[in-house]
């Protein structure tokens, strides 16, 4: 990046140098606080609400937070007028906010109100504090709003409106006593609030606070309110004579006491693939809060409900803490030595009796890179088998395939910043606001604040679709058709970037010929999308200066998943949208380490770094690295194929780490039959899962908060996470278990820390050559490929594509209808996927009471027209039956779905939609076609409780505004600009 030009400004006559255009307040306050402030936040910019940062510029008072560095700017901070205005602003703040810092759970060094009291040397309360005529709002399961502590800085409103862009919070500046409002005046817990926690994260004091903090943060905050309140009153009386200084020194002592108890540890979220990192604050094993920071590279201050509040599972009493061994009709607890010995004995026997191909390993997108590396090393080095796979097979491999066919790397072309920069986003089969909420926030903000355009193609009218400029609603399983049709339209309408294609892309003619059948008329016929809508979309794509395409499981979990992914990439190549900022293809990786599980080789056909097992040179390289003679050349079973192989008796033993495949693979009756047919099954997990029910040995593992390691997010960003707690009971990190188990097979790996595993990977894997824990310290991260010198590539293809000749390839693909079709009997299409609040089969989020309060059970969404036709309403109970099985579920009637299309979430351990799904899969990568699914519906009962509580955010009514709208405050007739005194300092 070019160096920013610097300039010099003069503050109280002293020269200050910094980049032109940088906020002066940040330059000045980079070391100690010189310009006082409360409402300013680096991720929110100047809100101008607190009236504390007054300075003089050219003889006039100005709010210092608005000033940018410019040559020759002269600012006076410290003269009497500025000081008086600053003081007046602060006095108004503490007329609204009661100072009781020693017994406040927010007295942890980051309270702006507390800190400014010291910075500004304020010793007396000029305006008395007065209560507001509002009650505390504790209706949200995760946080509390206390109007008596609220200073109306508006940080929460700005974060909600323009960072999260959920548009729930506002301030009614014209009210007699303004306050923060949810949906214009609803209780927080009954509003459109999605509990993302942005508002709580940015609150500068304790007005908005995590419930997990309350009464837990300080040694004096535990006391009951009937003791705390009189104590506060007594101290406030004393302050009339003592002033603040003495009592606030006590609060500093209290803060120092807390520092010895509260631990802050950087970690990386273990839910979706966005890769949010944040500090997790703990006292003992109690999680006080998750605190995002502006420095977090993927998310900044953003989180979703799960990342911010979804961590109760770590301390769940249901955690496994002891190895278990099947003993007749029960499981009994065992020592690690007994468990390891039994595993070594049985796997060795099976290998000797049936060959190495009779043993298979399944890894997980939830465990670390190092652990994925080790389990594939165990499979290949110790068992000489490529029967190793991971759950990315179930969701993401088609996207990888589509990109590998066309541009080379099977991963996101750029970063979240590129998604934000793009002029146009094409979002296909991605319910981003539910499945990747923080990325959704970034792109919703790009749309709201910078007029980014969105074309959304989906079966459901979810939030992204509702906000789109163009919503394409195709018939199920037909995305490939409209994508090919738009590619053809690009050529026909002259939008194709021929210069880019001629220079960078091979197989043009073959591609154009393949597009011949895909006229707009044909696309309309197959997809049901009107020609005019397709043209509008085509024109928008053709004229956009930069385009990114995002897609997720709405594309990949079809028989045509790889081909549709390929068609997306073809369309981007046609319009020259690779290799520049704000361009590229972005499959949204579903779990925290989907990308890493593949990158580190836990797949049946590649070594770490995507070297093919059929490549003799690669095999020799890895065999040498691992000290063995040779490695198998044939790809192994995919995890989707393993249950069938087990059912057929070809596979005799499996070792499944961190994956509940008995629930999450498709057609689970079939999967469970396969697992039951195994001679020996090891399950390694943090909970006793459905898969564990079939196990012979269950090993208790540790989640990310109990170990060190790295994950790779959807941007190819490698990030370090740190151990917060020791593992509970006898549980162990997966890398420790694998290392210890290897020694029972006679392989002394000798790892004592995951950094040593990463060092080994870097030595052997070219695209990870420069990765080390040293380079990942703090908030640093690396985007692979990483050269040995540590140089990484946030944006791919800036100097050619990842093929030997540096050229991309058009890869022609043809549409065919899926095998699973609706017919007269199975007359409804059942789409399935995620909801914002829950995750996967609820093994983690189901342990979080607040999340269960929001979505207590799964349900099926039915369109209003189908509901009317069948006499259904919210709460009706129906039986859904597919060609494989049936389940019962309650109904929610919503216009998010249309016609004869249904939608059911995957978040259940009981009536899981995989009872219904089929064995059909994408032939290219064997990913199950979960979303090609026909069912019939019978009514069990018409009446019943709604499965989606009325307090759920989906029933809320958002209140979009531009932001804090502080101008409305200034326009009040009773607002008086500091330094003059305010008649109502306690009100606003």
């Amino acid at each position, binding site marked *: 990046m070019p160096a920013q030009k610097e300039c010099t400004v003069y503050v109280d006559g002293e020269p200050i140098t910094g980049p032109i255009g940088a906020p002066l307040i940040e330059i000045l306050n980079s070391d100690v606080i010189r310009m006082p402030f409360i409402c300013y936040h680096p991720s929110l910019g100047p809100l101008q609400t607190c009236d504390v940062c007054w300075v003089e510029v050219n003889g006039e008072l100005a709010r210092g937070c608005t000033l940018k560095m410019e040559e020759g700017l002269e600012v006076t901070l410290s003269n009497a007028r500025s000081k008086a205005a600053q003081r007046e602003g602060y006095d108004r703040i503490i007329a609204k906010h009661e100072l009781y810092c020693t017994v406040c759970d927010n007295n942890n060094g980051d309270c702006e109100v507390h800190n400014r009291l010291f910075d500004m040397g304020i010793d007396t309360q000029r305006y008395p504090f007065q209560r507001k005529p509002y009650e505390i709002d504790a209706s949200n399961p995760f946080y509390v709003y206390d109007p008596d502590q609220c200073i109306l800085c508006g940080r929460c409103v700005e974060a909600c409106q323009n960072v999260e862009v959920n548009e729930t919070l506002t301030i009614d500046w014209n009210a007699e006593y303004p306050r923060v409002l949810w949906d214009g005046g609803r209780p927080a817990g009954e509003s459109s609030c999605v509990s993302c926690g942005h508002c709580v994260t940015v609150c500068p004091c304790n007005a908005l606070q995590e419930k997990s903090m309350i009464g837990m943060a300080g040694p004096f905050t535990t006391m009951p309110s009937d003791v705390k309140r009189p104590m506060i009153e007594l101290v406030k009386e004393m302050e009339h004579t003592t002033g603040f200084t003495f009592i606030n020194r006590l609060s500093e002592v209290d803060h120092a006491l807390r520092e010895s108890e509260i631990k802050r540890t950087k970690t990386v979220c273990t839910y979706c693939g966005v890769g949010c990192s944040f500090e997790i604050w703990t006292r*003992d094993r109690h999680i006080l809060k998750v605190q995002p920071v502006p420095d977090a590279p993927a998310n900044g201050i953003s989180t979703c409900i799960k990342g911010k509040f979804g961590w109760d599972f770590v301390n769940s009493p249901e955690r496994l*803490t002891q190895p*278990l061994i099947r003993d007749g009709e029960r499981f009994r607890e065992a020592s690690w030595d007994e468990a390891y010995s039994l595993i070594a004995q049985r796997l060795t026997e099976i290998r000797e009796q049936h060959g190495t191909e009779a043993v298979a390993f399944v890894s997980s997108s939830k465990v670390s890179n190092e652990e994925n590396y080790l389990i594939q090393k165990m499979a290949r080095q110790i068992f000489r088998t490529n029967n190793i796979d991971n759950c990315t097979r179930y969701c993401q491999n088609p996207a990888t395939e589509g990109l590998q066919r066309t541009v080379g790397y099977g991963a996101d072309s750029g970063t979240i910043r590129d998604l934000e920069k793009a002029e146009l986003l094409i979002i296909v089969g991605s319910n981003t606001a539910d499945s990747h909420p923080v990325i959704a926030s970034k792109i919703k903000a790009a749309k709201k604040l910078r007029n980014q355009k969105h074309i959304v193609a989906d079966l459901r009218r979810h939030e992204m679709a509702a906000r789109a400029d163009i919503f394409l609603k195709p018939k199920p399983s037909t995305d490939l058709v409209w994508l090919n049709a738009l590619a053809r339209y690009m050529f026909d309408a002259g939008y194709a970037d021929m210069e880019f294609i001629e220079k960078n892309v091979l197989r043009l003619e073959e591609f154009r010929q393949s597009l011949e059948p895909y006229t707009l008329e044909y696309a309309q016929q197959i997809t049901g999308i009107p020609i005019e809508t397709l043209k509008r979309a085509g024109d928008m794509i053709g004229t956009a200066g930069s385009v990114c395409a995002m897609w997720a499981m709405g594309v990949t979990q079809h028989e045509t998943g790889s081909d549709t992914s390929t068609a997306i990439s073809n369309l981007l190549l046609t319009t020259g949208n690779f290799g520049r900022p704000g361009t590229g293809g972005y499959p949204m990786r579903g779990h925290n380490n989907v990308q890493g599980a593949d990158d580190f080789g836990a797949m049946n056909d590649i070594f770490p770094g995507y070297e093919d097992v059929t490549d003799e040179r690669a095999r020799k390289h890895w065999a040498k690295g691992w000290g063995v003679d040779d490695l198998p050349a044939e790809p192994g079973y995919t995890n989707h194929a393993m249950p069938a192989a087990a059912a057929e008796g070809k596979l005799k033993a499996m070792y499944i780490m961190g994956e509940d495949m008995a629930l999450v693979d498709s057609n689970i009756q079939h999967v469970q039959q396969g697992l039951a047919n*195994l001679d020996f099954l090891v399950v390694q997990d943090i909970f006793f899962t459905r898969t564990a029910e*079939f196990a012979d040995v269950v090993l208790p593992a540790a989640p990310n908060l109990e170990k060190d390691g790295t994950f790779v997010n959807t941007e190819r960003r490698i990030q370090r996470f740190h151990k917060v707690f020791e593992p*509970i009971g006898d549980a162990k990190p997966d890398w420790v278990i694998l290392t210890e188990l290897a020694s029972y097979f006679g392989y002394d790996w000798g790892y004592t820390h995951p950094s040593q595993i990463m060092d080994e990977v870097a030595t052997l894997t070219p695209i990870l050559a420069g990765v080390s824990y040293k380079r990942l310290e703090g908030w640093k991260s690396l985007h692979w490929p990483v050269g040995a010198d540590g140089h990484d590539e946030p944006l791919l293809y800036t100097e050619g594509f990842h093929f030997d000749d540096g050229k991309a390839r058009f890869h022609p693909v043809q549409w065919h209808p899926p095998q699973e079709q609706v017919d007269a009997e199975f007359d409804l299409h059942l789409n399935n996927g995620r909801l914002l609040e829950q995750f996967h089969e609820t093994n983690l989020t189901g342990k979080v009471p607040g999340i269960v309060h929001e979505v207590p059970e799964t349900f099926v969404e039915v369109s209003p027209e189908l509901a009317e036709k069948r006499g259904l309403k919210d709460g009706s109970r129906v039986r859904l039956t597919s060609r494989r099985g049936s389940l019962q579920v309650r109904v929610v009637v919503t216009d998010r779905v249309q016609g004869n299309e249904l939608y059911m979430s995957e978040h259940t351990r009981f009536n899981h939609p995989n009872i219904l799904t089929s064995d059909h899969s994408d032939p290219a990568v064997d990913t199950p076609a979960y979303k090609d699914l026909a069912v019939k519906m019978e009514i069990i009962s018409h009446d019943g409780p709604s499965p989606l509580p009325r307090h759920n955010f989906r029933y809320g009514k958002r209140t979009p505004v531009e932001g804090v709208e502080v101008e409305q405050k200034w326009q009040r007739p009773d607002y008086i600009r500091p330094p003059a005194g305010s008649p109502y300092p306690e009100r606003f």
Partner: protein
Amino acid sequence: MAKPLKYDVPKPDWTVTKTADDEMREFVELLHQRGVLRLANTLLGSLPKVSSLVMEGLYNRSGSNAVQNISALVQLVANMPPEQFRRICLGITEGLQAAQQTRPNERDMEAPGLKGAVKLLHNDELWRDLAPLIKAARSFSEAMQQSTDDGPHAGPGATER
């Protein structure tokens, strides 16, 4: 064919927050690390000697005076409204500061002489300044008289000796 088996995880033997045992262990460890236990042990080891020294220090006129004076001071502070006490503190502080800032060569601190003294007796401004001091001295004198009459142990809660 492996029959699927259920398993109920036993009640955990670990806690999210520290148990009393944990707290006590940590408390003792910290007392040790900070040298408090060493001091306490040393103190306990030499308790007979130390007790005797303390009693020697207290059981004489000075010790008895100190205890009684501190008690009187505590009673005084407890009976005084905070605003008044704060004013007194401020007055003392400012008086001391003024005294410290006064230099011996300042003209108004020179001896007034006989004529000057007579002139001062007619200076209304000076008498106004001195009035509170005189009143304070008078009150102080009355209080001293009362203290002499009532004896050193009189005060709220005192009944008989």
